[in-house]
């Protein structure tokens, strides 16, 4: 990997498993190097992605219109009831507001929106400029909360105060504020009740997981935050277990709930057949209920009977192909390494925008020798490593897709705006199907076969 140009300051963020470099720990969680063309976003983005799926909330972005516009309904989070979260509200700050302060405009926006839409809760996001000019978000929100008798919560998410992970934490703090102490006596319940953290119900993924849990005899109290409602979030402390999928965004909330209300938590993953089965078993074991454990095995067996023939078919077609993975969080990267093995593929490059040290340790353990591991990579690094590692496919988000296609590499979109579920057993089939449709498309042969045709 010495031949690859890596910018000064980026050396600590790139590793190759099995090389001497591996003895050094990969750096992560640090700020991006200026001018390195990071694929990361900002604090505001982190807070927005975590909170936005709260479906009946009014989400008001206090800032210039761009911040609201770039995040307006771009996610594939689905909902079953009210869909106020899909409206993009902004205070549309102008030069005048920057100079004289935006508090009046914010108060006016709340006065217009709350009576009109009657939301049970309002989230007011601050953006870079709000942090600079020092609008007192707390005071304006407090006044509105008192006036309308609903929680109006400031989300202090000025973009420049840190990385996207700080935004996750900010969002968790806001959610925590909504959660009330437990009320029901847990022992009186017939079925165990748990919270599901870190699923944003993209294309109905949280519904899929919820239905598995229901089948094995476990009820989900609230999902953070896919298809959630204010009332459900308030009652979150009434659960006896928190399961966390997207640890990058929700580990912090689980910790807070454990500290405050002694709710234990466990990390799970519903990406891939193996992870989904393991996670269901882990949850079942926690209940210590033989009936639940029995039913879990039944559900897993039935699902495997249903999906494995199709997945095996794809496996035959995909066997031996190589994948590169560049995603937001660590949990997804880890699951994807396993999931690619299920369909006969090897991961040769893996990176994340905001993976935690713990995630990189696991990645280092399970990755094959020679795998390139990257934190906060940029297009130049992605390009070089996809090519030197001979990747047939990239998993990433919208920004990475055109790069892969221009390099003649297949692509799977694992970002928030996907329109089909990739979680659970059906998600595993969808995933294998998507990998198949992109790697095995006849288009690649057609466009790369030009040499055979000679000079035209």
């Amino acid at each position, binding site marked *: 990997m010495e031949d690859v140009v890596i910018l000064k300051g980026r050396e600590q963020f790139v590793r190759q498993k099995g090389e001497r470099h591996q003895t050094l720990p990969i750096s992560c969680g640090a700020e991006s190097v200026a001018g390195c063309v990071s694929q990361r976003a900002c*604090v505001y983005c982190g807070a927005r992605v975590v909170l936005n799926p709260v479906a009946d909330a009014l989400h008001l972005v206090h800032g210039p219109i761009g911040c609201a516009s770039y995040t307006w309904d771009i996610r594939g989070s689905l909902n079953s009831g009210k869909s106020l979260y899909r409206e993009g509200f902004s205070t549309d700050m102008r030069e005048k507001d920057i100079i004289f302060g935006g508090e009046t405009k914010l108060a006016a926006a709340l006065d217009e929106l709350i009576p009109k839409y009657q939301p049970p809760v309002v989230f007011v996001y601050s953006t870079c400029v709000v942090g600079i000019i020092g609008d007192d978000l707390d005071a304006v929100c407090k006044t509105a909360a008192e006036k309308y008798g609903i929680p109006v919560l400031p989300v202090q998410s000025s973009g420049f105060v840190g990385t996207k992970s700080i935004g996750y934490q900010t969002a968790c703090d806001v959610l925590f504020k909504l959660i009330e102490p437990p009320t029901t006596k847990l022992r009186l319940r017939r079925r165990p009740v748990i919270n599901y953290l870190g699923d944003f119900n993209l294309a109905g993924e949280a519904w899929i997981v919820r239905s598995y849990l229901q089948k094995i005899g476990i009820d989900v109290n609230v999902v953070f935050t896919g298809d959630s409602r204010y009332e459900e979030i308030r009652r979150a402390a009434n659960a006896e277990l928190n399961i966390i999928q997207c640890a990058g965004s929700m580990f912090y909330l689980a910790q807070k709930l454990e500290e405050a209300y002694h709710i234990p938590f466990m990390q799970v993953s519903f990406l891939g057949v193996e992870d989904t089965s393991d996670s269901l078993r882990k949850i079942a074991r926690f209940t210590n209920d033989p009936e639940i454990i029995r039913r879990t095995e039944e559900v897993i067996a039935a699902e495997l009977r249903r999906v494995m023939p199709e997945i095996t078919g794809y496996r035959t077609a995909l066997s031996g192909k190589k994948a590169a993975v560049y995603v937001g969080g660590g949990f997804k990267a880890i699951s994807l390494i396993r999931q690619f093995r299920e369909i006969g593929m090897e991961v040769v490059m893996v990176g994340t925008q905001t993976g935690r040290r713990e995630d990189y340790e696991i990645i280092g353990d399970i990755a094959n020798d020679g795998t390139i591991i990257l934190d906060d990579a940029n297009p130049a690094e992605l390009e070089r490593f996809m090519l030197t590692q001979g990747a047939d496919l990239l998993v990433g988000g919208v920004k990475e*897709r055109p790069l892969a296609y221009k390099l003649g590499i297949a692509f799977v979109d694992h970002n928030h705006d996907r329109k089909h579920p990739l979680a659970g057993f059906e998600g595993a089939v969808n995933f294998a199907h998507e990998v198949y449709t992109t790697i095995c498309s006849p288009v690649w042969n057609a466009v790369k076969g030009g040499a055979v045709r000679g000079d035209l």
Partner: protein
Amino acid sequence: MPMGGIIALKGIEGAMVILHGSQGCSTYMRRHIAEHFDEPMDVGSSSLNEKGTIYGGSAQLKTAIDNIRKAYNPALIGVLTTCLAETTGEDVHRIVEEYCREREVPRSMFITAPTPGYGGSHGDGYWYTLRCVVEQLAQPPEQAAPHDGVNIIVPITFSPADVREMKRTLSSMDIPYTIFPDISETMDRPYGATYTKMSSGGTPVAALRNMGGAKATIEFGSPGDERKFPGKYLEEKFGVPYYRIASPIGLGQTDEFFALLKKITGKSMAHETAAERGRLMDAMIDGHKHAFAGRCTLFGDADLTYALAGFTTEIGMYPRVIASDSRNRHWKEAVAAITADIGEPVTIFSDTDFATVRCESETGGSNIAIGHSDGKYLEEHSGIPLVRLGFPIHDRIGGQRICSTLYAGTNRLLDTCVNTLLERKFSTYRKRMYDQYFPKI
């Protein structure tokens, strides 16, 4: 503002862009642009953090420039600002000048443009950045040698396909031109055997330097505050005759463009173009009854809605609602003038939002809408079919390949509009007729 600036700069040969601000701005804009054009969209960021925000971010911006030069080796670097940098008072002109002194590189390697998001829309940022480019690159009057070329300055809503069509047309007439910006290749690269980080194409810097010596400038766009437009600068500074006209969408507006070309160069349209003009007229007649049954909502950029107001009025698909983010009164007056004689009500909103557009489109009785993807709610919630045009198009592919200008492009747009109306008609008429006329005893 900065997103418009990025697209403007991406139309210059060998140019790379850096945003002075927090990391998220650059990422969001890259995503927004990449999804429309389906092109790799590398934009640097000075990744301002808390420290840089409080104590000044010049060191971070300089590091960013260093790193971008190392990784991309661009011929030109555009440095744009964001809300954050402007609010803390970062002076990019000064920082870049300092950088040039320290690293001993020419100032002409940089374009600096303050583009705070709260200062205007992406359309405003686009025009402002074009103006900065011309101001900073065009040669002083004594050095700009007069030449036979015509400057063609296009708005942000010109797709790469529109730019290509314009170039093809001018070449067919043997008219030398400088088209600016030229995103025909940089934002719509052909697939090829090897990939390079910097794409080829774009307006050559040398051509930009010589814009002051051109025969005339034709700038497409809605009337607005002239002080902000690059063509106006060329007129004031170098005496280049300046014409700002509607984008060539529709028969009349395209005719106006060719008439202007003839006035400037003495040349007539090519034979093939004349045939395309004839075919457009044929298509207008073929579709006239269906088009006249359409009543439309036009929304989006000032330049596009202005041109579309002319086009839809011409084919009888009269606007019911015309809406733009533009805060400019010239736009509103111009659009009102175009639709003054249709004899039907039309509501014009400047500086508006989608809640208003949706509501007015429903009450006004629009049955078709033309605009970008954010208008999908018109379709989803109000049942008004949307013809996707402009920027951004995120929920369909090929936004970069839509050509809606000049005769052939107009023809395609006309067909799309009429077919959208027909599709709705054919898919609903059986049920409507049954519900309406089947005798109920």
